[in-house]
């Protein structure tokens, strides 16, 4: 089965390649529609540039070449996974991205786990205890959370838990300047991770709670739940063994789709919490017209989305035998 899954994922990823290439091509030209180039931004920041200085920068960045040559060069380099060079940062784009990837991965991973975990639990409780006080509280909470802007949630958490209670740091990825053992360093990162991860997962948790509740209510109304009750099983056994797994499938589907959206959300959260991740890098790259870097990040994101969807599909097959045993083709 593992082999089948690996083959399946590989297959999915291969299918993703043309999509990724299309995204790259579209992005390349789309990005260049934005007015202003990196030289102007740099010159603007310096506040006192001369014409020689501008020419020098443009030549160095390759901005003096015609667009189609820039494009051919880019694609040629992409074929050997060379994402180019960020002149602004004076680094290769690959190294910049790799450096930031970890932080974003940790943030997104934690947020996914939190939002799916809590969403599933809360949604399930709301459905099982339908029309009780508890379920009303959860439902209202989910609606409010769903409607609250991400950055606002982030700031409120900072004010309450970092400023007033002082439990967590206001921002950052680790305690700077501290020399810690690897275990203490891990704890330190976790300590910094708590608020941003909660903020980012808030909206999605609400989404999954609502979805899970609806799905669970539907599942609890299914005939096989009645069969389970007719067997004389206890309520908790019915929920755990029969309802939960069935109800979770739509949530998984949604989670797969939401990965790319969450990447967008992480831009906001990373900037609010000074979390040194990809989102923040992309945000800066956009405003400094560091187009190669932006393209590199988009390229990576599209790969990430394709891979995540493949992974979600695998999880799917683990949860739902109908997909696994038919090799992804049912009926």
């Amino acid at each position, binding site marked *: 089965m593992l082999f089948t899954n690996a083959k399946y994922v590989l297959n999915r990823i291969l299918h993703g390649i043309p999509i990724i290439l299309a995204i790259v091509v579209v992005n390349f030209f789309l990005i260049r529609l934005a007015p202003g180039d990196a030289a102007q931004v740099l010159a603007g920041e310096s506040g006192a540039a001369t014409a020689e200085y501008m020419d020098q920068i443009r030549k160095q960045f390759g901005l003096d070449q015609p667009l189609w040559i820039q494009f051919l060069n880019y694609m040629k380099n992409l074929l050997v996974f060379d994402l180019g060079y960020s002149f602004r940062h004076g680094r290769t784009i690959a190294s910049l991205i790799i450096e930031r990837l970890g932080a974003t991965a940790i943030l997104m991973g934690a947020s996914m786990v939190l939002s799916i975990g809590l969403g599933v639990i809360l949604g399930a409780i709301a459905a099982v205890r339908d029309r009780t006080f508890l379920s009303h509280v959860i439902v209202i909470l989910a609606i409010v959370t769903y409607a609250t802007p991400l950055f606002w949630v982030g700031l409120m958490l900072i004010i309450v838990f970092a400023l007033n209670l002082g439990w967590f740091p206001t921002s950052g990825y680790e305690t700077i300047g501290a020399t810690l053992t690897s275990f203490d360093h891990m704890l330190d990162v976790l300590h910094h991770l708590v608020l941003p991860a909660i903020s980012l997962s808030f909206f999605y948790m609400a989404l999954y709670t609502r979805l899970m509740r609806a799905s669970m209510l539907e599942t609890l109304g299914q005939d096989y739940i009645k069969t389970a009750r007719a067997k004389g099983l206890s309520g908790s056994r019915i929920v755990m063994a029969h309802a939960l797994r069935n109800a979770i499938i739509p949530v998984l589907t949604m989670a797969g789709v939401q990965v790319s959206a969450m990447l967008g959300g992480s831009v906001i959260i990373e900037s609010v919490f000074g979390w040194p991740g990809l989102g923040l890098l992309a945000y800066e790259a956009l405003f400094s017209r560091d187009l190669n870097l932006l393209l590199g990040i988009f390229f990576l994101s599209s790969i990430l989305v394709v891979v995540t969807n493949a992974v979600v599909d695998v999880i799917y097959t683990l949860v739902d035998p109908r997909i696994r045993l*038919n090799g992804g*083709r*049912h*009926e």
Partner: protein
Amino acid sequence: MTVTEPILQIRDLVKYHDTKGGRVHAVDHIDLDLFPGETLGLVGESGCGKSTLGRTIIRLHEPTSGQILYRGQDIAHLSRNDLRPVRRDLQIVFQDPFASLNPRRTVRQILSEPFSVHGVGTKAERSEQVNDLIAQVGLHPSFAERFPHELSGGQRQRIAIARAIALEPSTVVCDEPVSALDVSVQAQIINLLGQLQADMGAAYVFISHDLSVIGYLADRIAVMYLGEIVEIAPKWALWRRPLHPYTQALFSAIAIPEPPSKARKHRIIIQGDIPSPIDPPSGCRFRTRCPHAMPICSEKSPKLTEVGDGAKVACHLVNDA
């Protein structure tokens, strides 16, 4: 049976669906005639292709190959436009009347549609025609202004029937029209269909899995199994002497509401499940469940052969005897 020209002649009709799992042999080389004013019952179990056949012959589905001669004209591959004049003559009533009626339109709007689509009559005339239709299917005139969800299942099915007969079609395909209804309502709809046919003279292709219902309405009955017709005969002939083992089993499986003391003693219960229409058995498709299967059955596909009394059977047991 009166000797007239058939209104529909189906010749070597094939309809395959390509699905992810493979090619479904829904309708596999079928020949069939439908005569004016008759009711042809189409019976079979799920997956036998009876619904697909019903829909294909009125061109709701595009046939894969073969001919559909409507009054001598082959309509099997006509374009949408060329098909338009024929359309009004070929109507259908579905199993689930709720799904087939637009929930946002009143009964009047639903029933006016066939007239406006085919440009029949003025607005005032149409309104009059709708009133007539409603009366014809046995509903009170006030129903015209109601929405489908305000009607019971039986009433909705009456509206669906009214829509089908609005333009006085020559052929109506009734696709399981009473399966979703309660016994008492089922009787009402069956009676209504019978009466409308007597009034209008339309030919019915009546599709059902329930032999009792089919037997009640049909003049001739075609029995389908896995995309093929295995037996076709006038009702009385079929009832008196079912020849195909599958037909025999179907008849045997009908539970008749009569005192146990009067009931038939011999009951044939055929074993096993219906094979997949994606990969039907070789030779005779019924052989895997047939109590009389012989070696030849797996090698050769039996042809539908005339056996007298206007009956045709496709079975080596009968044909080669």
